[in-house]
């Protein structure tokens, strides 16, 4: 029975887009009654994502021509191992956030509240947008999906309605829109050059001429602005730190990955021939810069959520190290597969860890009534589960074993040393140490015995447990990394060649 369901007869990939959209529309229509839909919707979304992954594992990559129209006329959806992995990561984080937010945005006295109304449509559309980005195989369709993310993300940042978050949201919006427009300009050029928008068709047709390279460069620059890679990171910390906690989790864990995902698709899938040694080293330099500067800035923050947000800036840097380590079709590196898989693994492992960290931080701030680090002293006694979750997530972010972060780091390091690019290995290791430095700065606070017991607002154990569960997932990813690894290999771009051993 199960294999039948996993076969192409049930388009799980399509369902992963349709379901969250349907829930979002229902949430707009139903207002305060929508909260009964939230958990079933989220869980069903998770089931769909897992089924999609299982389908890929069982039957390989899956393509679907939407409306029955093949490219170049129509739009294709592509569910390969990479897409499936991101679907699952998204579903895991989204389920956690949904469970966490359910009571946060509960209507008061059966009356709809502003944030309560807005959050759920934004949340589910964001989820659908993420899935659409991961599944999209058409450049312009991806643009629309990206804008879906931009709008939901910006609105979420501003959900608190405070002046600082409004400014942060505007800054974010400016960056994101500029990035989208740059991307769109590249799409226009590519379409004018090749008459196709489908990734597969473009790969078949693309030659590394001036227009193609310029289009790729413009698109990449735009996407980098949206990914907040150093030195375009300025908008991220205030936005992610200012957003309501569940939004912070979604943004930091997932949304920034979407544009990164597109960069990776672009360079590995569409224009592998265009990647030169210089460009990939430049990407690596940006990544290393992000790691070092992001970490150093994280070390200087006095607000808990800002520490975590700057940590995102730093962690995004690792993702860009996969470009020099993978090399290109023109200049392939040994162990490219390890580098590519390591980079993607990092993106996947970072998601639940960062979400857990933000959720835990949100609870701590709620308990303290203060967003600074200092009042956290001794909170380990009051919120042990949240603190433990924070610690576990920190383990993954530092890349310490056993965690998904470690697996990623191991793969990236291996590729760096095997290809003789030891300087990236040093950046990776330095990043781990710096992460330890800024995270233990927080963890220390948990264990300090305060001079006098500070008053704390009570926090539900269930909410803490959600953070713990997400952190647990990021740890588990390090112990049970074989299946995700295999999943990632299905449909791996040809540019990322070379075996692990």
């Amino acid at each position, binding site marked *: 029975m199960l294999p039948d369901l996993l076969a192409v007869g049930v388009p799980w990939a399509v369902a992963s887009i349709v379901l969250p959209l349907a829930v979002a529309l229902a949430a707009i229509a139903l207002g305060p009654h929508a909260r009964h839909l939230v958990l079933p919707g989220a869980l069903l979304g998770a089931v769909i994502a897992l089924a999609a992954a299982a389908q890929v594992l069982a039957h390989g990559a899956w393509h679907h021509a939407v409306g029955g129209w093949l490219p170049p*006329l129509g739009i294709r959806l592509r569910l390969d191992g990479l897409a499936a992995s991101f679907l699952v990561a998204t579903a895991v984080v989204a389920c956690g956030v949904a469970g966490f937010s359910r009571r946060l945005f509960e209507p008061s006295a059966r009356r709809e509240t502003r944030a309560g109304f807005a959050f759920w449509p934004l949340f589910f559309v964001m989820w659908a947008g993420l899935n659409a980005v991961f599944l999209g195989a058409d450049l*312009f369709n991806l*643009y*629309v999906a990206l*804008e879906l993310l*931009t*709008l939901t993300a*910006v*609105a979420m940042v*501003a959900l608190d*309605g*405070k*002046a600082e978050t*409004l*400014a942060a*949201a*505007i*800054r974010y*919006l*400016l960056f994101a*829109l*500029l990035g989208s*427009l740059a991307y*769109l*300009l590249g799409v*226009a*050029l590519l*379409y*004018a050059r090749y008459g196709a928008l489908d990734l597969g068709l473009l790969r078949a047709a693309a030659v590394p001429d001036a227009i193609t390279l310029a289009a790729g460069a413009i698109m990449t620059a735009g996407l980098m602005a949206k990914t907040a890679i150093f030195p375009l990171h300025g908008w991220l910390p205030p936005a992610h730190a200012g957003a309501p906690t569940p939004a912070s989790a979604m943004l930091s864990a997932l949304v920034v990955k979407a544009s990164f995902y597109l960069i990776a698709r672009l360079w590995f899938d569409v224009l592998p021939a265009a990647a030169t040694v210089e460009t990939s080293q430049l990407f690596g330099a940006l990544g290393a810069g992000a790691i070092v500067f992001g970490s150093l800035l994280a070390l200087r923050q006095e607000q808990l959520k800002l520490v975590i947000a700057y940590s995102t800036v730093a962690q995004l840097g690792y993702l860009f190290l996969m470009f020099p380590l993978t090399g290109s079709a023109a200049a392939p590196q040994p162990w490219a597969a390890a580098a590519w898989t390591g980079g993607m693994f990092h993106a996947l492992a970072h998601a639940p860890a960062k979400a857990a960290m933000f959720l835990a931080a949100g609870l701590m701030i709620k308990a303290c009534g203060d967003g600074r680090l200092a009042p956290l002293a001794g909170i380990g006694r009051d919120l042990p589960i949240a603190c433990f979750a924070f610690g576990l997530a920190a383990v993954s972010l530092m890349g310490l074993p056993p965690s998904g972060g470690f697996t990623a780091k191991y793969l990236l390091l291996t590729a760096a040393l095997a290809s003789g690019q030891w300087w990236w290995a040093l950046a990776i290791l330095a990043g781990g140490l710096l992460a330890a430095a800024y995270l233990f700065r927080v963890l220390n606070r948990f264990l300090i015995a305060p001079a006098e017991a500070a008053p704390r607002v009570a926090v539900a154990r269930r909410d803490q447990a959600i953070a713990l569960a997400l952190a647990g997932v990021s740890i588990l990813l390090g112990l049970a990394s074989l299946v995700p690894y295999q999943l990632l290999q299905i449909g791996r771009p040809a540019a990322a060649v070379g075996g692990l051993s």
Partner: protein
Amino acid sequence: MSPILYAATGAVLVGIGVFGLLARTHLLRRILAFNVIGSGIFLAFGGLGSRGPGSGVDPVPQAIVITGIVVALAATALAVTLVTRLFEETGAVTLPGEHPAEGPDAS
């Protein structure tokens, strides 16, 4: 020839819009500049789509541009609302840390 002319105009509009974005700090002006960039890209898209032999226009860029226009409007609506709310909360029409409205170039 003409379609290429419009495409080139689109490219110039992108430049003008980017200048507006960089040189202006008033947020509504930046939103305006965004729309100039956007419609410049659309025009380039359409102009490039009308090149070549044969009659008629490529409908795919047209459809894409219509979608793009609607998306741009959606983004503009959100942006404009954010800016008015920021003004109501703080009285500022620029981002914090950027020059407040002073001098002709900052308006």
